[in-house]
């Protein structure tokens, strides 16, 4: 009963949210929703213990793929978005062959190198990737209407609803995966790969699975972004964006499902509302960098550890809740 109430109130709040915002804030909201999917998919990857520096490029693969499918093959946009995600996942499977020969630091650098190569290929080959300037004039999501609501996809509010539904559905899938025996196996692979292997877990298969799922959803996020912005180019997926994703994940904390989402929301609000309003836009990387350092120094378990401290204190007298988790 209580859960239902929270669900209803939450949905209403999410639906009503854009009406309290200015146009530019509505646009930011769309990106925020897409970034939440990006950072949550990144977390699934980190469940197996591997930190990649190529995740944003993989997102770009979804964006480029979906853009090209609509442009060159005339595929209906929602279908091409899904195909964009699938393309990113398949590329991840392909990349897993060289990359999963490495671990830890080497994987980090290897994933970075692989990402840079992909980005440079976009840059170098004007056909079909458009070179440095990328692809512009990507088909927008076609308008349609459900009942009384008319989706007009030049309006950020419409796109917010559309992307919101897709993202929530994706988050639900990611959540189900994490809470399943498959998710437990990911954790096992992370914490003690030898023991997992001795229990019959095929390490390569599970690492690849996590990489492919994470990449698929990152690709979907990229496709969502491409059809909203209308252009893609190599620089919109460079290492700086990757650093932002990393910051969201680390500031939020990667031990829980909601940690990275929290980090993404808090930093976006801070960034777009606070910093922009205060005219500190130029100092943005500086402040981001400082936040990153301070949080790794003083809050190594992320914002989620603060949340846990508060909720634990509140729920301490009710032990039956703990048993339910």
């Amino acid at each position, binding site marked *: 009963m209580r859960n239902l109430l929270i669900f209803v109130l939450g949905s209403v709040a999410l639906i009503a949210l854009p009406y309290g915002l200015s146009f530019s804030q509505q646009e930011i909201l769309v990106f925020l929703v897409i970034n939440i999917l990006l950072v949550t998919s990144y977390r699934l990857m980190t469940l197996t213990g591997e930190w990649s520096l190529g995740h944003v490029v993989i997102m770009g693969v979804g964006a480029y793929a979906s853009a090209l499918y609509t442009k060159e093959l005339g595929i209906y946009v929602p279908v091409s978005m899904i195909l964009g995600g699938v393309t990113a996942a398949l590329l991840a499977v392909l990349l897993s062959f060289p990359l999963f*020969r490495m671990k830890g*630091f080497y994987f980090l650098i290897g994933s970075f190198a692989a990402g840079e190569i992909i980005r440079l290929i976009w*840059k170098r080959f004007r056909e079909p990737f458009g070179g440095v300037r990328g692809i512009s004039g990507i088909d927008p999501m076609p308008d349609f209407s459900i009942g009384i609501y008319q989706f007009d996809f030049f309006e950020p509010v419409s796109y917010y609803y559309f992307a919101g539904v897709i993202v929530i559905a994706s988050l639900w899938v990611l959540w189900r995966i994490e809470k399943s025996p498959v998710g437990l196996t990911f954790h096992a692979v992370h914490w003690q790969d030898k023991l997992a292997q001795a229990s019959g877990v095929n390490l390569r298969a599970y690492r690849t699975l996590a990489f492919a799922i994470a990449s698929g959803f990152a690709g979907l996020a990229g496709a969502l972004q491409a059809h909203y912005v209308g252009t893609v180019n190599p620089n919109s997926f460079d290492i700086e964006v990757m650093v932002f994703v990393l910051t969201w994940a680390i500031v939020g904390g990667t031990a829980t499902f909601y940690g990275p989402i929290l980090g993404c929301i808090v930093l976006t609000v801070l960034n777009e509302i606070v910093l922009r309003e205060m005219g500190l836009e*130029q100092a943005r990387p500086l402040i*981001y960098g400082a936040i990153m350092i301070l949080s790794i120094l003083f809050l190594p378990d992320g914002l989620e550890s603060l949340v846990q401290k508060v909720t634990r204190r509140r729920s301490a007298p009710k032990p039956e809740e703990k048993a339910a988790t």
Partner: protein
Amino acid sequence: MVELLAQTGLNAVYAASYISLVAVGLVLIFGVMGVVNFAHGELFMAGAYAVVALYADMHVPFFVAVAIGMAFVGLLGLLMEWALFRPLKDNPLGGLVASIGFLMILQSLAVMGFGVRMEHIPPVTQEVVRFTDKVGLPVARLYVIVAAVVFLTALWYFLKRTRFGWALRASAQDPEAAALQGISITQTARIAMFIGAALAGVAGALTAPLVSVNPHMGHSVIVTAFIVIIVGGVGSLEGAILASVAYAFVHTFVTTFWDGVLADIVGLSLMLIVLIVKPTGLFGSADRA
């Protein structure tokens, strides 16, 4: 054709010089402290801006500016060791993340101090050492080559012949066993960080008049340095130098005969191939990492 090859070869020697200065510092830091310093490219950038500020803006003599820049970047290194790497030494990912944060801060400070535009510095010298009509080595580039030879030789002597050099190598190989010999790991970390940063700084300072100085110039430098230290084997100084030379030649020749982007792709692919075939690098041992 022969002249083009010779000229490209000279260019490659110059490229190898500054790359190896940067890469050796990165290897030293990784070896002793076990952290991957992502901000190493920005240390190079800081060295370059030191020359912009002192030599171009304040008209300090060039070599004085370079020396001050080198010392300044060395001190930045000490700051990083004290503020970031020491508190995070039990957090393997932490040092890397903190260095990324530091990278953003340095970049941002450069933008705020000097603007995003590229700085072109008045040339230090226009002289060129001519070998034939078409083959020559600008003296400004010669400075870089000489600096690489001098500093790397000095480093080699320090590591192989002095007490603190042994201490540094000992703590890179086995920090715990080194502590049991009375070596303070904090102290060796400071030395490594100072030397590593100063080498990046001097490379940036000396190349400042030869390239367009801008706040984002560290990016390609760190990518190159990573390629080099992976190919050379993380933790191997000799490997880093050899790989610098090899990479500089491949990259310079591909750039000259095809184009720069393709050269980057070739370089990165070489690194990936090395990682796949021998993840510890061509000269590396599996001791650390």
